[in-house]
């Protein structure tokens, strides 16, 4: 493992979260398009998403989207200003903080519902 610093991990997480979002989007589009085969098919597919594992995955997707969005802003700042490059390390910690807070919020909304089975 190359011992890179913050920038390397910011890059890696950006790639992974981007990939996760892409997969989610594909799954989403395919699921929605199931309506072409009628409401019954559509509902059968969508009942699968009620499984806890998918609902838990929703928390991860929310985390991935927030990280990707916030780090995207960090990248824009770096690409357009020397100032952004100067503070890239600190900016990444802010990105992580926002992502963690947001993920905890989403988890606090989703997990009780999983527990209650609604």
């Amino acid at each position, binding site marked *: 493992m*190359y*011992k890179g610093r913050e*920038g390397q991990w910011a*890059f890696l997480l950006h790639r992974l979260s981007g990939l996760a979002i892409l997969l989610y989007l594909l799954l989403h589009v395919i699921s929605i398009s199931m309506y072409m085969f009628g409401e019954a098919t559509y509902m059968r597919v969508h009942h699968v998403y009620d499984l806890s594992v998918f609902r838990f995955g929703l928390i991860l997707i929310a985390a991935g989207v927030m990280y990707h969005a916030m780090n995207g802003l960090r990248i824009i700042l*770096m690409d357009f200003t*020397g100032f952004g*490059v100067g503070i890239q390390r600190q900016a990444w910690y802010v990105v992580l903080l926002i992502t963690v807070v947001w993920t905890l919020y989403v988890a606090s909304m989703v997990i009780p519902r999983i527990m209650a089975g609604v």
Partner: protein
Amino acid sequence: MQINVKILRFDPDKDKKQHWETYAVECQPSDRVLDVLNHIKWYIDPTLGFRRSCAHGICGSDAMLINGRNRLACKTLIRNVVTGNAGTITVEPIRGLKVEKDMVVDMEPFFDAYRSIMPYFIADGAPPAAEYLQSEHDAERMAHSSNCILCACCTTSCPIFWVNGSYIGPAAIVQAHRFIFDTRDGATQQRLNLMNQNTGVWRCRTAYNCTEACPRDIPITELIEEVKRAVMYQQA
């Protein structure tokens, strides 16, 4: 102090793949990693292969992956990579280039990228009667990029370069920066067009490994970003 030096060895005549070998070496905290490697080569195992030339951080021959980071063996002190007695340092060849033997890698792709950016002054029209003049302020623009010694620490620390050898890499872009921001050079447009190709600056994903690795403390990512902006604004 006694340290263990763990080296990733490869002999193309005997080995199918790389393997680790460990050498116990007596050294001082103020010794450099290069001194330790020389000791191993001269007194323990003469088959060890690595490049070194000036041994003073200028020729750029001895870039290696030391304790997980690209550094020059001649500029890295033992006390900065080993803590306490009987510590271990790991030495590997730089990544992304074909290993020929032990620490010796094929540098040709690296220098091909360097040559591709036209690393020479191109005059614009007839030469002046005397010198090409440049103000101190203008010279400052290329102060960092003209410090490069082409050691390949940056390019071989880049995650993009590891998986995409066609990317010209940070070192070549730093060299291009040196000429793009040289007020005397006449081929700025041509250079920016080279940087705008799909093997150029846009491959950079700002992982900052190059900046961390540079033994000359060149703010490489910052320079690459400057080139990106120059390419973008010339098209606007």
